[in-house]
């Protein structure tokens, strides 16, 4: 195999490893050996003729496969794609390190494409766009070098350079055609897969990074904070200020001292959302919508969908079978495919249903149940704070007092830190610090103790807007837990006692790198969330472009002149680029040749041409003159002596 081809294949596999890396299917620590083996493959492949070397690789891949099977049986199928991706990456490295006379590189090329496809299911991150833009030219160059190799010709260095240059150009062409076809080709954006319904993956049990549909203080262990994008929220209409930061995934009501569980049907009447509404009500709501957003979820593993508390309407493709629950949360029956839906937000809508005094306490028993969870110190604190208020103080004032107390006197620590409290006993005891779940639990139970109906909500809290404030990016590290309280008018509202809860989100938009990143992410989210309306817009924009340019040119004599000047400048620049470094005398000589309709043969000098041609005397004089001029201009100006 030729060296250029081998290097191109190394580049291809490195891009593949990049794809795998952005899905976070494996830690960087696991990827490093693969990268090392890839880079070392031109050296390692010489051992391919030894049985021991090949056996080592085959056993390695089989061992990895066995590990993945074990993983599958123990953790369920939720990580199937990630595991498959890792296996595919390992196979790439294996193929590369054993590519030789017997091992054709075909499989490597197909496998690389497969990795790109699978990665597209797992990552919506802007990094994917970079990897894709890298992948296209690398693949084209590698294919070209493979074609040369197959054609049985040796790619000497000069040819290889030419091939690579051509390949890069071709890659750019393919990329352009691809993007044009992607933008303009009509298709059904809401198509339900033929087999999509039967292809379900169960969400995994146990601990996971990021959003948790439940809270369990018995879970211990290190929790890593990840930058993985789990969701993109694109503002379709309305102001950014009307799109809340808190995106709810699950509402939790029952607490047994260690674990929070969702509520049952009995709090159905307390919900404002997802209830059947009359047509009249819908009309009334439609006029009050403040903002509409489109949500795209990349977190395949969760069946939870996310919506803000004030969501008033949900429009999802029916295929996703999204169900609204009484506690104003959403569930999809089908995990394993990222979802896209629209949510209308109506912040100013008055509480739905009958307004009036709070419901009888009995009805809200569950929401007021403190249970065994709040330790004595916590109960005392709640009582003390409640007693400290003047009589007749509003519920809001009570809630704010308690929130402010926790916010100011307790410290936030990331989950899993040793100094933080692991349960409320620690929290109210000797360790006044903890993560959001502790804060949310403490505040909820204290509020309940003081007679305010409250619940814990988990989800995401992000303020990572792009520069244009069109796209709100939600990452795994934005996972959060907070509190919702029910006011006397039967309206839920959000209370967050966690100090610096959105610290990470606030750092976004700092330097120009961050801004550029946010801009790219916003752009990419338009590709990922491309739909029929976007397509229509792109089509209309492109269709109107020539007309708009013409209109702009005709708008005033100045613009016309500017346009013409730009055109002339373009022509001049192109001409000059073509003739760079050629003296005027030589150009005149060329023109004379064209005028006489003659051309230099290979290896022929102007003087030999003069000797060869049968010319009339006048013509000969002219040609002799321009020849002399050309020689003088071209060769007499010494650069090297």
């Amino acid at each position, binding site marked *: 195999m030729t060296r250029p081809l081998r290097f191109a294949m190394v580049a291809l596999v490195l891009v593949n490893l990049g794809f795998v890396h952005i899905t976070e299917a494996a830690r960087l620590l696991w990827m490093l050996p693969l990268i090392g083996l890839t880079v070392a493959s031109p050296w390692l492949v010489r051992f391919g003729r030894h049985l021991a070397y090949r056996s080592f690789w085959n056993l390695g891949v089989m061992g990895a496969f066995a590990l993945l099977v074990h993983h599958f049986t123990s953790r369920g199928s939720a990580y199937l794609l990630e595991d498959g991706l890792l296996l595919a990456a390992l196979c790439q490295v294996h193929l590369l390190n054993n590519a030789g006379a017997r091992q054709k590189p075909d499989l490597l090329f197909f496998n690389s494409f497969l990795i790109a496809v699978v990665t597209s299911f797992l990552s919506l991150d802007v990094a994917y766009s970079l990897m894709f833009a890298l992948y296209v030219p690398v693949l084209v160059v590698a294919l070209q070098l493979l074609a040369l190799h197959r054609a049985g010709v040796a790619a000497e260095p000069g040819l290889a350079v030419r091939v690579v240059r051509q390949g890069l150009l071709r890659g750019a062409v393919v990329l352009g055609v691809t993007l044009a076809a992607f933008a303009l080709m009509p298709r059904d954006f809401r198509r339900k897969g033929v087999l999509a319904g039967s292809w379900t993956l169960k969400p995994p049990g146990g601990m996971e990074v990021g959003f948790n549909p439940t809270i369990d203080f018995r879970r211990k262990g290190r929790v890593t904070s990840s930058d993985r994008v789990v969701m993109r929220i694109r503002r379709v209409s309305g102001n950014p200020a009307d799109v809340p930061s808190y995106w709810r995934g699950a509402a939790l009501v029952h607490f047994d001292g260690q674990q929070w569980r969702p509520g049952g049907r009995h709090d159905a009447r307390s919900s404002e959302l997802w209830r059947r509404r009359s047509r009249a009500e819908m009309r009334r709501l439609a006029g009050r919508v403040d903002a509409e957003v489109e949500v795209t979820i990349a977190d395949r593993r969760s069946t939870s969908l996310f919506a803000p508390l004030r969501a008033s309407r949900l429009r999802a493709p029916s295929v996703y079978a999204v169900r609204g629950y009484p506690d104003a949360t959403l569930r999809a029956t089908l995990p394993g495919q990222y979802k896209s839906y629209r949510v209308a937000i109506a912040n100013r809508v008055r509480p739905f249903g009958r307004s009036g005094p709070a419901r009888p306490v009995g009805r809200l028993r569950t929401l007021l149940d403190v249970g065994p969870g709040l330790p004595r110190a916590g109960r005392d604190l709640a009582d003390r704070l409640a007693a400290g208020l003047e009589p007749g103080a509003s519920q809001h004032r009570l809630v704010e007092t308690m929130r402010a107390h926790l916010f100011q006197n307790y410290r936030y620590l990331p989950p899993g830190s040793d100094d933080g409290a692991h349960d409320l006993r620690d929290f109210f005891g000797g360790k006044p610090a903890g993560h959001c779940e502790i804060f949310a639990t403490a505040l909820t139970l204290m509020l309940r103790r003081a007679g305010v109906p409250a619940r814990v909500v988990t989800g995401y809290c992000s303020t990572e807007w792009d520069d244009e404030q069109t796209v709100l990016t939600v990452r795994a590290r934005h996972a959060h837990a907070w509190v919702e309280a029910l006011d006397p008018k039967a309206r839920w509202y959000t209370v967050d006692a966690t100090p610096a809860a959105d610290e990470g989100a606030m750092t976004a938009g700092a330097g120009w790198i961050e801004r550029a990143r946010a801009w790219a992410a916003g752009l990419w989210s338009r590709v990922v969330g491309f739909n029929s309306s976007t397509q229509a817009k792109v089509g209309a924009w492109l269709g109107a472009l020539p007309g708009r340019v013409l209109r702009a040119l005709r708008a005033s004599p100045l613009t016309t002149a500017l346009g013409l000047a730009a055109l002339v400048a373009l022509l001049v620049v192109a001409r000059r680029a073509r003739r760079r470094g050629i003296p005027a005398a030589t150009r005149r000589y060329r023109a004379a040749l064209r005028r006489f309709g003659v051309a230099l043969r290979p290896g*022929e000098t102007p003087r030999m041409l003069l000797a060869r041609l049968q010319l009339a005397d006048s013509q000969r004089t002219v040609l002799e003159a321009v020849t002399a001029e050309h020689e*003088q201009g071209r060769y007499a100006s010494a650069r*090297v002596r």
Partner: protein
Amino acid sequence: MDGVPRNGVGVAADLAADVRARLGTVVVVPPEVVESILVALLAGGHVLIEGIPGTGKTLLARALARILGLSLHRIQFTNDLMPSDIVGSSVWRPGAERFDFIPGPIFSEMVLADEINRTSPRTLSCLLEAMEAGTVSVEGTPHRLPEPFFVMATRNPIEFHGTFPVPEAALDRFLARVTVGYTTPEQEIQLYLGDDPKRALEGLDAALTRDALLEHRTAAQQVAVSTPVATYAYQVAAATRHDESVALGASPRAAMSWLRAARARAYLHARDYVLPDDLQALAQPVLAHRVFQTGGGDASELIARIVESTPVEL
């Protein structure tokens, strides 16, 4: 149509014509051969003449020496020629009680080395060293050779009996290799009818002095080489390296010698810049003996083919 002559350049053109005319009275040699020899002389190189005996090589050398006003020694190379026969040796002077160095025939401004393929490699290398360095070391004492020092070597390519192959590295020492063959019938008949060459030789007088020649040499190397010309030289040299039938292509040194010779030719043609035409005219004499084909044999055809097919960029 030639460029405006710089100081000395025009003189050289007249000189070349003069030399040619004077030579013509004594010996009939094709003009391109005379030009190659003059080019080698002006470029400070040496020349290898190939040809069958009796075509006037020796006469040419003698005539040239007279016209240029240079001293000439002829060395007939035989297989028993010793290095000391060329460079000279030290002789014991009993009266003076010391060794005196008696310079050999190489201590001459012009040396005609006849049939260099008849001598042993050891003796030949002695000549080559002198050509390369311009000095001769005898018993550790360097002796400078005169300036100018110009070697015209001849080689008989027909006879192989009792000859030694001339090593490839040795061929590289010669700036140019020219082939002298039979002249046209008319010229030859004219030769028969003309004066006795020996007498004609006696009648020749010098066209210039040694110092003038040295000045011309210096001036010739001031001729300009432009980037397109250097690029063309490279392209041809590279083409010889990449040709399939070539075992050893033209080295960078060969290409540089080629450009040096082209400067001298441009000077002879009263130009102060080199044209691709100069390179083309000198491709055969300068490059053909420095390119070695896989099966042996002469590379002239290969050079001709490459020169014909390499485009001269405008």
